[in-house]
């Protein structure tokens, strides 16, 4: 859930709302925030499933180092959602295994 008011940091600016699509579902987020922030605000915590055991993975380092949070974004696999800014109309998909390029099948 969003931290709208904060005793030190003040209120957040939610003016620039955008609409994006997560596994085909329409969702709202704030333009420029990391994709991972929009997902957490919408209570989505599984970003991908591992290749062999199909275990869920989500945010771990949140600064673009660990690659646990990668997803398929606008047809590009292995996009680090914790450091990639959200844009209007983005198509975001849960990644299975090592992912696939737009239109191909997951491996």
């Amino acid at each position, binding site marked *: 859930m*969003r931290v709208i008011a904060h005793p030190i940091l003040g209120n957040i600016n939610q003016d620039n709302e955008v609409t994006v699509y997560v596994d085909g579902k329409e969702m709202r987020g704030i333009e420029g925030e990391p994709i991972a922030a929009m997902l957490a605000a919408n209570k989505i*915590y599984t*970003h991908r499933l591992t290749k062999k055991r199909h275990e869920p993975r989500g945010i771990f380092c949140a600064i673009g180092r660990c690659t646990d949070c990668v997803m398929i974004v606008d047809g590009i696999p292995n996009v680090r959602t914790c450091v990639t800014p959200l844009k209007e109309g983005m198509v975001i998909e849960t990644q299975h295994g090592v992912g696939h390029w737009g239109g191909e099948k997951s491996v």
Partner: protein
Amino acid sequence: MFEVDLLIVGAGPAGLCAALEAGQEGLSVLLVDENAKPGGQLFKQIHKFFGSEMHKAGTRGFRIGENLVREIAECPNITLWLNSVVFSAIDQNHFEVVHNCSVQVINTKKVIVATGAIEKGLVFPGWTLPGVMGAGALQTMININRVRPGNKLLMVGSGNVGLIVSYQFLQAGGESVILVEAANRIGGYGVHASKIRRYGTNIITGCSVESVSGNGKVESAILAKVDDKFQTIKGTQWEEKVDIVAIAAGLYPLMELLRQLGCEFTMCPPLGGWVPVHDERMETSLNGIFIAGDVSGAEEASTAMEEGRLAAWSVTYDLAKCTKNKYESVRIDITKRLEALRSGPYGIARKNAKDSIYAIAKNFSKLR
């Protein structure tokens, strides 16, 4: 080919301070960072810094960051490249950078590597489950991204990061915090521990997390008392309903670039594990390759800033852009401030560790 006096890799507290000192002394500086914004991890530090006036004590981390970024923008000798990755060291003077979707070759006289550190994980059944994350990651989510990924936090580790992030989780509207520490005493400052206790946080020492479970996200954790060898004491396990687990188990230096260059390393647990060997001037085993901040051993933002300044002055002197007298007086001042930051019961282990690294470096200095 882009030619500069000094290439600085990483625009966190160490890199920003290094750039400012060197830029103000007339060196041409290229400051490169892979992130979209400069400041490294300063902007998620919303607490007031510790230490004395000269260490900006009483100022919140993000304010220090804002001031540094403004000063950098005002210095004409500093070029700042964001969204740019230094991915290859051709030799000690030539580096390749991905910048604006193309590869640029940098020809530089000296280098300061200030790439920082990354959080250590802690392995237990369920540690990969969504909702288990680094304490710094949680701090980024609540303070930078302004999203709280849960309500009931289990914090593992009572160093300053564990204590401060627990407090900030509550500031960000979190419902409750349970904090466990495997050792039999709290690792961080008493003042931070008192703050979260006043909020009703249960700090349990001699206790660790045994496993975490949940359906697609953390739902509960099994905790247990541990002995002085950190082994579970049988029969002491109990369950707590939590929806987020943050691991504050320390950090280790991020030194891919230094490995590429072929720097010498030494194992130093008090500073995070493998650390690059460096001397009191912040020069590594390689001539002209300097380091500053957490990459030289994980400490804190205050020491990182001082080390950045020190490395910059060493470079300035080596490039004959200041007199020996000036350099010596600045170096002594900064060293004194660093020693103040590494004093007291919490700092002395880091000071001793640093001294042992400087001692190893003495041998390299002879070879260089």
